[in-house]
């Protein structure tokens, strides 16, 4: 459903993505792993329209995305959970979630999605009147994910959801990602935590300084010597 071909993205003179191609099929969990600075966030931002690529194409169900502004891309069913828990700190949990549905036309049906988000993240229900800025790191990550789900996306992009969380919370977040996928949402997951990401991924790609160097199923890459050495600590 999502197809990236020969994508190139630059920051001024610096070429951060040097021509990568990959695809995400309907219903899959696909992960993009790579070290810090490999270009994972840059790729995500190019897909969701926050950055304009210098070359290549990105299509969602056949529609070219590279010329569209971010809000159009969201309303086409592609939502991103940006890196670093970007919540609207000065608004309540509930207001954050309401903003997640900002791009939707069927305002009356958002209530059932809200219930679904609260079932997925019961902690958000307890804290729904609380200012988002006062939530813990894990809760903010859940809020950012819940907010993206309120757009009722067909494909969800997650940028390092486990960053800076305790191991217990990391497990919880990964379980929830699988749960979201089981309910029918396709997932593109970017992670530095390669072990966890490969464990839940159908397919995976390795990104190194702006180029895709390896690809395969999740278990293939998890057992690949090069991946083991570089990303799985031996």
């Amino acid at each position: 459903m999502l197809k990236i071909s020969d994508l190139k993205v630059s920051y001024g003179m610096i070429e951060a993505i040097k021509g990568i191609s990959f695809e995400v099929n309907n219903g899959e969990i696909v992960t993009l792993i790579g070290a810090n600075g490999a270009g994972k966030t840059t790729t995500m931002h190019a897909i969701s329209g926050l950055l304009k690529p210098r070359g290549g194409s990105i299509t969602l169900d056949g529609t070219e995305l590279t010329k569209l502004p971010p809000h159009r891309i969201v309303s086409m069913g592609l939502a991103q959970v940006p890196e670093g828990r970007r919540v609207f700190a000065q608004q309540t949990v509930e207001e954050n979630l309401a903003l997640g549905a900002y791009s939707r036309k069927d305002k009356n049906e958002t209530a059932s999605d809200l219930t679904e988000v609260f079932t997925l993240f019961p902690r958000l229900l307890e804290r729904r009147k609380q200012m988002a800025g006062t939530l813990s790191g894990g809760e903010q990550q859940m809020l950012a994910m819940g907010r993206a789900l309120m757009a009722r996306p067909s494909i969800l992009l997650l940028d390092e959801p486990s960053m800076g969380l305790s191991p217990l919370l990391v497990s919880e977040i990964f379980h929830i990602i699988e749960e979201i996928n089981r309910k029918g949402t396709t997932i593109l997951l970017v992670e530095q935590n390669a072990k966890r990401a490969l464990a839940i991924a159908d397919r995976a790609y390795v990104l190194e300084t702006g180029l895709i160097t390896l690809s395969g199923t999740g278990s293939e890459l998890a057992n690949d010597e090069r991946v083991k050495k570089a990303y799985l600590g031996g």
Partner: protein
Amino acid sequence: MKTKKKLPALMSAKYRGRTASYGCVLAGWLILEVMMHTGNLSSLFTSLLVPVCCYIVAAIGLNLNVGVSGELNLGQACFMSVGAFTAVCLSGSLARTIPAPLPRLILSILAGALIAAIFGILIGIPVLKLEGDYLAIVTLAFGQIVKSLITNMYLGVDENGFHFSFVDNQVNMAPGGKMLLNGPMGATGTERISTFTAGVILILLALIVVYHLMYSRSGRAIMAARDNRIAAESVGIGIFKTKMLAFAVSSCLAGAAGALYGLNYSTLVPAKFDFNTSILLLVYVVLGGLGNMTGTIVATVVLVLLPELLRSMQDYRMLIYAVVLILIMLLTNNETLKTWVQKLKKRYTAKGGTAHDTES
């Protein structure tokens, strides 16, 4: 009595803010009207009523732009200028066609607001697409440009229509014509049709518009874009559109405020709306609290009146003004004081809550 206690518990925070603003304005209006009619208001104060209303309206608009939308604007006075001179020229040229002052005042304010909003939109189109504090620089420059333009503009009207020039002696008019703009001397011979009541109504309208916007879907989008640009874009908020909405409304309110201001004086010089005035408006907004409209109203009233009250102190006037500014800044940013106010608030709402519980 009991119903009074009940109110705070029933009202959510946003309605409390609104009620405070409207209450503040209406109470002020009532008190001043009574004082005026009983002859208890000095002529100095009476002369300040309309300008204070104008500054309040411009500051409320600026707070939407700076506080709610988070863009720095250093040229709010210049949008007042655009509104003021538009209104003065229109009112002057319509004096014969519409002799009644009230419809002419309303029409002129609408025109001033509209033209200022158009200028705002024209500036916003290139600038708000950029990330960063470009609006500050551009509004600053715009202020200088508008001031220079009006300072060098000569405009007259006679039976043949408008005559316009940038050189004094080239405005050739038929006898009986009337000069609307006289270069550095600005507009002279304006019929003074502004009233305090019009000022109060304008403040109320500004509050209605701004609060309606703040607590609507668009308002939450504006604040989201301010709080976190990337997250806002990721949920599908058009950053440019939201910032433009806030900036255009802000310019529009400044234009309306300027129009009322211009029609309150028989002469109006373009130098009146210079950089200092823009900065003063910004001071009212910052001291009143970003996003806090009641605070803006109070800060504007205090800081416009203060220099006038200190007039008798002559040389020390601006010194005391500066000291008071610094003190307010220190006090409003003082942590102990803030927590103390918070505690008071909590106790107040807790009391309201129990009163409500026992009732129901």
